[in-house]
């Protein structure tokens, strides 16, 4: 199997890279800093004897076509595209700077749309999996993390469009709404609800391959939390401070 992981340098992406390498996948690791993925690539090829290539790409600039060209040149066929990368600012509120709005939308949404568009013809032809990552932050609008959750909600919507568009029956699309995961993204935040490990998430993502999943909650019990939050009358919801 050949897989590309966008956002492989840390957190969920790194854990996924380790799990996939242990299963014998050939990998292309993508993130903005070459040094991190270079170290990870060395580690994975030493420990699992797998073929690991790297491609440094800042999702802030939209040269996603280069990744398709590179991916096909080194792997020939791509079976799985994992779009894991994400970014959140601690100044993400209504009225934040233009710079933060643009960066958040670029990394979490626009680059993902560009990447999907670039890879779409390949997957239509050969089949495979495109995996996207959303967040429970986009269940309902809040005053915190508003650009990030807007981007994630829009990404979710775009994945629905993708599922609707694809015609190859061997082409699968999975989209996950993640709860709190122990990574740098959630580091230092006080969580009301328990966090899960990156290994838990990456195992579930691997188990979900070859299925069509739209807006699948991980861990599953976030579905109930989500339902409660959505059903809560605005009068009460507006009083919540989280």
């Amino acid at each position, binding site marked *: 199997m050949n897989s590309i992981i966008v956002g492989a340098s840390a957190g969920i992406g790194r854990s996924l890279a380790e799990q996939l390498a242990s299963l014998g996948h050939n990998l292309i690791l993508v993130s903005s800093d070459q040094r991190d993925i270079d170290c990870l690539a060395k580690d994975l090829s*030493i420990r699992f004897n797998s073929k690991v290539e790297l491609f440094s790409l800042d999702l802030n600039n939209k040269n996603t076509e280069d990744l398709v060209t590179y991916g096909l040149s080194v792997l020939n066929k791509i079976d799985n595209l994992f779009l894991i990368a994400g970014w959140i600012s601690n100044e993400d509120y209504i009225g934040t700077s233009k710079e933060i709005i643009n960066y958040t939308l670029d990394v979490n949404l626009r680059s993902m749309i560009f990447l999907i568009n670039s890879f779409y013809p390949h997957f239509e032809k050969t089949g495979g999996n495109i995996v996207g990552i959303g967040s429970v932050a986009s269940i309902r609008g809040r005053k915190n993390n508003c650009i990030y959750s807007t981007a994630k909600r829009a990404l979710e919507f775009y994945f629905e469009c993708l599922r609707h568009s694809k015609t190859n029956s061997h082409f699968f699309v999975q989209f996950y709404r993640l709860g709190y995961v122990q990574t740098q993204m959630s580091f230092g935040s006080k969580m009301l609800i328990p966090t899960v490990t990156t290994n838990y998430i990456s195992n579930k993502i691997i188990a979900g391959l070859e299925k069509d999943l739209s807006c699948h909650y991980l861990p599953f019990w976030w579905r109930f939390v989500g339902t409660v939050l959505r059903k809560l009358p605005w009068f009460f919801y507006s009083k919540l401070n989280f």
Partner: protein
Amino acid sequence: MNENKVALKEISSVDLQTQGKFRWSQPDRYKSLLSNNKTAIIPQGSALSYVANSFSNDSLTINMKRFDRILFFDTTQKKITVEAGITLNKLYFFLNKYNLFLPIQPGYPGITIGGCIAANIHGKNQYNEGLFENCIEEILLFHPKHGELIISKQQNQEIFDLTIGGFGLTGIIIWAKLRLSLLEENSVNITHEPVDSLYDTATKLQKLSSSYAFLYSWNDLSPNSKYKGRGFIVKGLFTNSPKNKFLLIPEKDLFYPMKFNLFTKQTISIINQIYYFLNSNKTEKVPLYEALFPFVKKRSYYSLFGKTGFWEYQVLIPHNYAEEFCDLFSKLACQNKASISLATCKIFRGSQKYLNFNGEGIVFTFDFLANPSSLELMRQLDKKLSDFNGIINLNKDSRINHETVSLIYPEFELFHKRLRQFDPQRFFQSDFSKRLKL
């Protein structure tokens, strides 16, 4: 857009003498690891040190556990390059597949390579193997003012010497290239030889020193034993065992202090007696993993001290003073009615440098219940140490101060001076470095 995220984290030294909430970060990418911090910083491995050498009220702790990758491996040269946050556990299981291992390792697998280098730890037989520095080929060190430096015995030797056993005060060790040994046999044949006293242990250890791969003692210094120190010497030789099952252990959260102290003046005598009778003449074959990391099966030991913790006093006494030291120790322990839960001895050789716990002689280790009489006994021993040319392991003793250390460590002032020459702004500081006025 990549700043180091900071949290307040509950951290304690293993002896529980220093605890609190400290500013803590765990970078997982190079750009945040190498970013400029506004306050003093101090690197941290697994925080499995007895003393508070990886945190402080005024410093930001940089935990290295996310930097745990293998960057280079050559089975024929028997060399490996690893990031400093890798644990001995991860390394052990990787190397085992290639019949290789690290010849010098401390007693717990959760410890990181960065921690082994920064404390220049000793293994099960320092006399034969020396200190951890003997496994090191080269290191990549990061210092905010000096940038990234390759340091080794050949390159930047001055900084290399300050860094080995330098308790993280010269910078962040990013990776290290290590020398490995061939693992010809996967088990250790352990035999126990009874001894009558501390001094009997010291003389027997000296005779046995070059014949065993693993060599240390267990001595009973509980009140009922009249502080004589009867016990046994643990002798280990490599052997092959067809049935070699591995223990898999949780790497973190070694210690869960119990709400009450099981170790009291009364109970330590009973516990030591039972331990002695169960083990004094034992012979067994144990998997190498268990022999290297004996604390895996004895993890609960630390929790038995309860929330008040303990003090460890580890001293290196030259052979010619060993008898006098043993007599003095028994006398002072009797006078102070000391409560010692554990005593062990090892044999050392080598030359002492900077803050390294190294030299020729016998190493005596005592774990004291944390009470005023223990403190008084250690204070009295401190006073006598310079008469014996003895040194205290700074990495084990949470109370020793600058005055005592500068008296007993001949190169303490030199370390202080050279550290300041290398880093006049003293970017790297810990509770330990402040206590010793480094």
